[in-house]
């Protein structure tokens, strides 16, 4: 049973875990900036957050297991549907990582993550004020 405090914080918690996941995806892009044929990945944050709030994760396609012998299926359970970035200037080795874009998005995402942390902290303070009053 989800408590009211849990409900109050769950939206920010989902936003924060999606931000953390996006940070991981962007770090993967930056790490593979020199890998031939690597295609830069990213996901649409607002769509992913909407789907996460509605309780369905777009990336996971888990199979229904009705008997103990059933296998869980190999579909990876990622928190969001990863898309490919369309390159502005494709490079000769097939790599589509644009370092400027990735660095910008990485910094922006880090800032949004910190903003999310601030929101949660303030919500906790609000709840504490209500308890103490």
């Amino acid at each position: 049973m989800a408590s009211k405090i849990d409900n109050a914080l769950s939206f920010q918690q989902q936003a924060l875990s999606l931000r953390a996941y996006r940070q991981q995806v962007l770090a993967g892009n930056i790490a593979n900036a020199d890998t031939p044929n690597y295609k830069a990945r990213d996901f649409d944050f607002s769509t992913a957050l909407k789907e996460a709030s509605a309780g369905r994760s777009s990336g996971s396609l888990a199979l229904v297991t009705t008997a103990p012998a059933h296998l869980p299926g190999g579909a990876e359970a990622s928190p969001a549907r990863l898309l490919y970035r369309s390159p502005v200037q494709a490079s000769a080795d097939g790599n589509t990582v644009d370092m400027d874009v990735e660095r910008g998005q990485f910094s922006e995402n880090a800032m949004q993550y910190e903003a999310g942390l601030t929101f949660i902290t303030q919500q906790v303070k609000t709840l504490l004020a209500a308890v103490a009053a």
Partner: protein
Amino acid sequence: MSVFSVFHIAGSALSAQSMRLNAVASNLANADSLVGADGKPYRAKQVVFEAVPVNGESGQGVRVKQVVEDASPGRLVYDPKSPAANEQGYVTMSNVSVVDEMVNMISASRSYQTNAEVMNTAKQLLLKTLTLGQ
């Protein structure tokens, strides 16, 4: 947890880029080598990167797939006094292109720097997460 795998991803990139830097150092050191370990002129070594999944998650790390030897012909230098000279007086030197290697070195060090910064950002985010609600 996602932010922890940022460390693995950026760490894999750091080690891959340092291997590249290693190859560059070896190539530049041997730019004027007459013979390598196998008795033939030194051949430039280049690393090939490959994306690999980290911790079975969808994040992509990077690793060195293989180290290939540059197949381009060696430089011919006219030096009849050298013991390695052929009948026409030419010596086959290594096929290291010093300009290419310098470009490679700058690119590798910049990539290393960027990934170190990525790790730093992830560290800051984790530290802030630890003080959540205070």
